[in-house]
């Protein structure tokens, strides 16, 4: 009975994968990956969207990883368990529950308009960074807490300071878990449309963006556009784009899984 439930739970995932590969695989070609769209998106490739998603994700990581990891170290290693830290935790959980379109509007108001970054990679990355922050804080904190308390006590007992203990024992031991969390955060950032809708993404650009203040094309947004806004679109190109986005996200997921399992095999506790 439960096995049946499990199979039903997995079925949609398999169905989506099979369907998208079946419909999209014929579109995949070197030209499709590395070419620019032409004929009003109806032919050509998706290279600028791939590049745009790559840049958005990278800049998002550069911003969010130090912030998120730092916050997690504070919460796990330094913060006392009091009202103040409890409210921080509640804030993080709430942050994780906010719909992504709300982040998009927030990014529009704060980064695009107030800071005057305009529709740009910068504004989009920062918006994605805020959205992924709770994911990274939560997973990093879990990874840090999983490091046995006894290591900390022993380290302190031989005269190491708290900072030395964190730098030499706790963080290195938690690193695989931290990296997994960061990658999972990125995966979410790479696949989301709403946060970049008003902050970074544009319909079409004849050139690749040349700086972080330029707007950019991006895979999820491109998929949204060619699926809803372009009449007479060839389904093959739509599914091809979906497949590339899927491969991008699944690739990140696979990377996280590999890091986790390799670290688990080598772990000494």
């Amino acid at each position: 009975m439960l096995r049946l439930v499990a199979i039903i739970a997995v079925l949609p995932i398999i169905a989506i994968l099979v369907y998208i590969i079946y419909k999209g695989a014929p579109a995949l070609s070197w030209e499709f990956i590395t070419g620019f769209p032409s004929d009003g998106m109806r032919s050509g490739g998706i290279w600028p969207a791939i590049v745009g998603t790559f840049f958005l994700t990278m800049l998002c990581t550069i911003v969010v990883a130090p912030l998120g990891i730092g916050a997690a170290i504070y919460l796990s290693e330094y913060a006392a368990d009091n009202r103040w830290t409890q409210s921080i935790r509640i804030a993080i959980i709430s942050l994780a529950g906010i719909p992504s379109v709300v982040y998009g509007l927030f990014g529009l108001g704060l980064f695009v308009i107030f800071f005057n970054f305009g529709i740009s990679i910068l504004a989009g990355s920062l918006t994605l960074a805020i959205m992924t922050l709770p994911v990274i804080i939560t997973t990093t904190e879990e990874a840090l807490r999983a490091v046995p308390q006894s290591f900390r006590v022993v380290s302190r007992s031989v005269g190491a300071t708290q900072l030395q203990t964190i730098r030499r024992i706790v963080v290195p031991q938690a690193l695989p878990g931290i990296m997994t969390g960061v990658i999972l955060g990125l995966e979410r950032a790479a696949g989301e449309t709403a946060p970049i809708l008003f902050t970074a993404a544009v319909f079409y650009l004849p050139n690749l963006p040349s700086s972080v203040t330029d707007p950019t094309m991006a895979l999820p947004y491109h998929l949204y556009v060619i699926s809803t806004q372009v009449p007479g679109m060839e389904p093959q190109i739509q599914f091809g784009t979906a497949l590339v986005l899927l491969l991008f996200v699944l690739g990140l997921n696979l990377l996280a899984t590999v890091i986790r399992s390799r670290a688990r095999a080598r772990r000494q506790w």
Partner: protein
Amino acid sequence: MVAQSAHTLMDTDYKIVTENLGLQYSDGTESLKDISINIPKNAISVLFGPAGGGKSTYLRVLNRLNDLANVKELSGKAILYSEDGDPLDILDPDIDVTSLRRRVGMVFARPVVLPMSINENLTYGLEVAGERNKNRLNQAVKRSLQQAALWAEVKDRLDDPAVDLSGGQQQRLCIARSLALEPEVLLLDEPTSGLDPISTGKVEASLQELKKEYTIILVPHSVQQAARTADHAAFFLQGELIEYAPGALMFTNPTDQRTADYIEGRFG
């Protein structure tokens, strides 16, 4: 020698002196009441008694590991004397805790090896103290392993992960890790509780050697071990020091009825 005469003037052969030491945790658990003990140099002082009596707490005060716990109240005095007789107020919040912990080493009940090689486990304490000289680090590794009676067993595999060692070897590695820092005092909190009799014997034998150079405070895992190892013995019961006497006297002719009852196994 000036140092020698100063020492004589102090008229003390004590390494650690605690006076009216009192401690209470925030959650109201295990605490110490008015503990006054003078710990003699180059001897094994044993703290024994039923669980929850304050023995571990007392040890943790001596190298300030209790700083990591939620302590509500700490009172009384705890003084560590250097070889020259210079006193250090252990409880003074302004002292350098890191240097105190190097002078007063700690070995825990469960052997906790750090997730690194045997070699790195031993050099860790020295490295965080700023020692970078490879020669001195290597010497410390060899000396500490010899003192902990582990050198012969691991000398060809120093770069192996420390977790690959057996339980008994891990515990001797933990002792060696403390000794690598050349401490003056070694605190051992039931160091053999998880070990088989042969490993226990090895640890006890090395303690007899170590006391020639170090001051040792041991919380034994049984009354029998207390009787075997104690030069001096203190009986702790529910946070109070019931009796403190030379080991030979304590285990043959205790003065307090509660001590006698415990030693003879009438409670515990």
